[in-house]
């Protein structure tokens, strides 16, 4: 057996100082030599626990093995049977909690760089052209997909492949969901996303932007008038939460969704070449410590802010962001104030935010989800000087859908009720998955839900075809 190098083959990255000023991608990706070197670190375990750590069960051991043999096309084809968005997932999955978190090499050394290899394979295909995929015989049945995030795109790709006539309806002017408006260019280049989407379009998926489901078109219209026999709803959990603190509507206070949408979807970082502006003043505070908060903080650095501080009421241990994002943020100069909670925003006298009153916290007893609950430290208030604040404390499902679409059962937090293994909702022929069902989660969980729903839709429609044939 070869001697294992104790650490992951390093990912070539852009210099932290330089990259903190541009939106170009931070990680450059492996070349074939590095990918194969990394693949050689795999022990080919009898029990590939990495695979059980993958939410969509990619046979990782085999993928790595094929990579080490330089069979890149075969390795990618194998991934794609389980995950249609490898170029995206290789870049944005929280591998440390999934596959790599269960890697046996990782028990003693750094885990095998499964994410980096996945990304390499997808990029290799982008460089060298993809293998043609065969589409099944047309089934003559129409399926509508609502929302073009990872759940919708995955469901669309699979159903199209199975021979259904698939149309995706997206509210915004561009497809991709959070991958388009939330995750920034330096982490997920829009070229990568465009390639994934263009591949779907070339394969026959019709994408209709500017269609706000529930407003422009209703479920009844789709199913009764337009002949869609099944509908998949993957509208995400896009409604930003605010803290309801005094001064929260002062000028200069954004939700992370707004800040990121201005920058990513609307191209504000290229203002005035793009018409939409964004304010990212000298001092910016970001409230929260998830992926969204990291993205907002790193965007603020790049948009010209000098001091960017992440303020979180819990401690570093409870942070939910991907480790790589957190490390990159630190390298780029983002500062962190753990165990601090904002309680008020201060007006500069002209209606702009100039300060954020915070109070220090300490960790008390664990709460329902097992995380220790932060409690305020008495007499610990202080004011942080800020020019902008980005509130990034999470999102809820958008009420637009439930308000306009009767007959779909919702949970008490506003999400859609859907069966876990099929995505079946309370209405026949209507399936759902992704953040709209689970609440804010991950790209791969959304993609996995899209995949399961696609197969359930196939079962449902096959049965319908059978019944029609008998009748």
């Amino acid at each position, binding site marked *: 057996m070869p001697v294992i190098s104790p650490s992951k083959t390093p990912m070539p990255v852009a210099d932290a100082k330089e990259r903190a000023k541009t939106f170009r991608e931070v990680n450059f990706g492996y070349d074939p030599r590095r990918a194969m070197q990394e693949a050689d670190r795999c022990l080919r375990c009898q029990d590939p626990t990495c695979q059980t750590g993958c939410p969509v069960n990619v046979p990782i051991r085999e993928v790595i093995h094929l990579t080490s043999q330089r069979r890149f096309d075969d390795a990618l084809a194998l991934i794609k049977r389980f995950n249609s968005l490898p170029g995206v997932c290789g870049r944005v999955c929280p591998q440390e909690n999934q596959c790599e978190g269960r890697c046996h090499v990782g028990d003693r050394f750094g885990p095998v760089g499964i994410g980096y290899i996945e990304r390499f394979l997808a990029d290799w295909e982008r460089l060298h052209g993809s293998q043609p995929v065969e589409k099944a015989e047309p089934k003559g049945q129409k399926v509508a997909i609502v929302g073009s995030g990872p759940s919708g795109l995955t469901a669309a790709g699979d159903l199209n492949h199975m021979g259904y006539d698939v149309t995706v309806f997206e509210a915004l002017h561009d497809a991709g969901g959070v991958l388009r408006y939330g995750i920034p260019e330096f982490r997920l280049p829009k070229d990568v996303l465009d390639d994934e989407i263009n591949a779907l379009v070339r394969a026959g998926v019709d994408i209709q932007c500017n269609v706000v489901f529930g*407003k422009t078109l209703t479920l009844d219209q789709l199913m009764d008038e337009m002949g869609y026999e099944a509908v998949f709803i993957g509208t995400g959990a896009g*409604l930003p939460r*605010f803290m309801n603190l005094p001064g929260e509507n002062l*000028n200069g206070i954004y939700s992370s969704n707004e800040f990121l949408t201005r920058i990513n979807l609307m191209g504000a970082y290229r203002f*005035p070449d793009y*018409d*939409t502006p964004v304010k990212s003043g000298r001092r910016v505070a970001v409230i929260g410590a998830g992926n969204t908060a990291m993205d907002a903080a790193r965007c603020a650095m790049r948009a010209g802010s000098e001091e960017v501080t992440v303020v979180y009421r819990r401690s570093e241990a409870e942070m939910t962001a991907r480790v790589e994002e957190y490390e990159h943020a630190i390298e780029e100069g983002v500062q962190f104030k753990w165990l601090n909670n904002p309680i008020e925003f201060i007006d500069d006298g002209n209606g702009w935010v100039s300060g954020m009153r915070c109070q220090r916290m300490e960790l008390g007893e664990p709460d329902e989800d097992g995380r220790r609950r932060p409690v305020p430290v008495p007499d610990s208030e202080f004011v942080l000087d800020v020019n902008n604040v980005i509130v990034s404390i999470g999102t809820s499902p958008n009420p637009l859908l439930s308000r306009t679409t009767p007959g779909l059962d919702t949970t008490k937090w506003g999400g859609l009720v859907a069966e876990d293994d099929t995505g079946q909702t309370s209405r026949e022929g209507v399936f759902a998955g992704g953040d709209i069902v689970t609440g804010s989660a991950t790209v791969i969980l959304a993609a996995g839900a899209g995949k399961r729903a696609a197969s359930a839709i196939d079962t449902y429609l096959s049965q319908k075809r059978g019944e029609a044939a008998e009748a």
Partner: protein
Amino acid sequence: MFEILHTRQLTPVTKLFEVAAPLVAKAGRPGQFVILRVHGHGERIPVTITDLDPQAGTVTVVIQEVGATSKMANALAEGERFHDLAGPLGEPAPLREKGHVVCVGGGFGAAAILSILKGLKAKATHSSAIVGARTAELVILEDRLRDAADALHICTDDGSAGFKGLVTAKLEELITSGEPVDEIVAIGPMVMMRAVAATTAPHGIATLVSLDPIMIDGTGMCGACRVTVDGRTQFACIDGPLFDATKIDFDELVRRNKTYRDEEEAALHRYEQAHCRAEEAAAAATRP
């Protein structure tokens, strides 16, 4: 892409567009709005629906030039296209079944109240319209408004047409004239909507105004459009755009709408310079 089938220059700075958008034309209701983008690098701007023709599949909007984006929009001609048009967005206006509704429109707001007046007419609800402009030439859509409303009152600052004075003076007159007024809907510049709210408050008449905060998506995803109504934060794009005028924190809205004043001025300046250069180039090209 959404083709512009017909345009009409209403004043030097306001233009009417009839746009092919069959799904929106069918789904739209009075009081709702659409989000437009003029070109592929453009902003998303909310525009109130002026009229809908579900048979022809068209949506009519009226755009008043205030900044670079609205100027770019108004430079579009028949046969050209809006890059994007999404809607109908927001909650429709609640159309009363009976009583007397007065719709007040200032500037482009005169166009925005048209769909509501037509909606009321369809329900045979008694309606009056009060529209204001600086001077007679700037009164817009008089023909269509006269058609839709049971009574049309034109107000001009200089008295060159109709009543001489502000829409609020006319409104006060109407309210105190003895004819009962059950509801008021006002759309137009913020100062006008505020003044309407102040006029109706002492009479205790239900008053709705259509708010136009800065928006991006228009679907509840960003929170740019948040306004304080009755002490609570609301998203104008999904909870509005019409709100009870007595409960709105107008100061906050006026202030928030100035967030990008510097950028807007710079964009306008750039647009005008580019425009001049283009005109000079065109002139040079035609010179012998």
